[in-house]
C-alpha cells in the first residue's frame, strides 16, 4: 500500500515535470521541470532498491546535466520566451502528437497483450534469462557492491569503451567551441549580419566554460 502511494505520487511528479518540459515557453522553466522529473525517477529507483543508481541519478542528471543546460541557456542569453503559436511546418504539431500517442498505444498494447493475464507482460516480452546469463541479486550484499562486481567483471570492456567515449566527447566539445579563424560561409553570414558582434565577444568565455565541463 505504501509502495503504491509512493509510486503514484512520484509518477505524477515525473509526468507533470515531463509535460512542463515540452509545454513551457521559457527554456529555463523547461530545465527546472526536467529536474522535478529526474527527482521523481530517483524516488522510483529507491522504491526498487537501486540505491546507488538513485544517488547517481540525482548527482549526474539533476546536478551535472541540468546545470550544463542552464549554463548554456544563461551564457547564450536564450532565456526569452518562445512564441509557441508560430508553426512553420503546417500540421507538424498534430503529426508529432499523433506519432507519440500512437507509439505509447503500441507499447502498452504489446505489454498487455503479450503475457497471460497481463501481469506477466514484462517476462513475456523478453523471455526468462537462462541460468548462466542471470546475475542474481543477492539481498544481503549492498547493491553498489554487486553493481561494481558486474561492471568490473563481465562488463569491463564496455566500461573501458565508455572511458574512451567520454574522452572523445571532451575533445570534441573543445574542438567544436574553440575560436575559429575560418571565414563564415556566405549563406550563414547573410543570416547573421545583425547579431554577429554580440556573439563574437562571448567566444573566449564559451571555450573556457566547455573545457570545465
Amino acid at each position, binding site marked *: 500500500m505504501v509502495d*503504491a502511494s509512493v*509510486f503514484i505520487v512520484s*509518477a505524477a511528479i*515525473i*509526468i507533470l515535470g*515531463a509535460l512542463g*518540459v515540452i509545454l513551457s515557453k521559457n*527554456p529555463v522553466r*523547461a*530545465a527546472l521541470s526536467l529536474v522535478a522529473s529526474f527527482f521523481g*525517477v530517483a524516488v*522510483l529507483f529507491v*522504491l*526498487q532498491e*537501486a540505491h546507488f*543508481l538513485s544517488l*547517481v*541519478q540525482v548527482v*549526474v542528471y539533476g546536478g*551535472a*546535466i541540468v546545470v*550544463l*543546460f542552464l549554463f*548554456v541557456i544563461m551564457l547564450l542569453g*536564450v532565456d526569452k520566451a518562445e512564441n509557441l503559436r508560430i508553426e*512553420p511546418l503546417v500540421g507538424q504539431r498534430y503529426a*508529432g502528437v499523433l*506519432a*507519440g*500517442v500512437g*507509439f*505509447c498505444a503500441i*507499447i502498452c498494447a504489446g*505489454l*498487455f497483450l503479450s503475457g497471460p493475464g*497481463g501481469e506477466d507482460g514484462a517476462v513475456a516480452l523478453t523471455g526468462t*534469462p537462462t541460468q548462466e546469463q*542471470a*546475475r*542474481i541479486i543477492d539481498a544481503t550484499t549492498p*547493491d553498489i557492491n*554487486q553493481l561494481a562486481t*558486474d*561492471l568490473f567483471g563481465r562488463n569491463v570492456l*564496455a566500461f573501458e569503451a*565508455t572511458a574512451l*567515449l*567520454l574522452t*572523445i*566527447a*571532451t575533445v*570534441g*566539445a573543445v574542438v*567544436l*567551441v574553440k575560436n575559429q579563424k575560418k571565414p563564415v560561409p556566405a549563406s*550563414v553570414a547573410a*543570416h*547573421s549580419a*545583425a547579431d554577429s558582434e554580440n*556573439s563574437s565577444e562571448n567566444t573566449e568565455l564559451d571555450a573556457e566554460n566547455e573545457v570545465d565541463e
Partner: protein
Amino acid sequence: MEVTETWYLVLSAVLFSIGLIGLLVRRNPLVMFMCVELMLNAVNISFVAFSGAFNDIAGQSAVFFVLVVAAAEVVVGLSLVVMLMRYRASATIDDLSVLKG
C-alpha cells in the same frame, strides 16, 4: 495493492512518448535535448524495472552505461548549440539547414 513491473513499464512508455512528442514538436534545440534526456530516463525506468522483475543486476549496469552516454551526448550536443548560436542569436533547429551542401 502491489506495484508490479507492469506499472513501471506503462509509466516508462508514457514518459518516452512525452519525450518523443516534445522532440517532434519543439524547435528550440535546447528543449529538444531535454526531451532526449526524458526519453533516456524512460528507458532507465524500464531497465531498473526489468532488473527487479528478473532479480538480475544486469539491468542496473545498463542504466549506468546509459548515464555515461547521456552525459557525452549532452556535452557534444550543447557545444553544437553554442556554435550554432554564434552565427544566429535566436537559433531554432531549422537553422541547421545551413549544413546542407
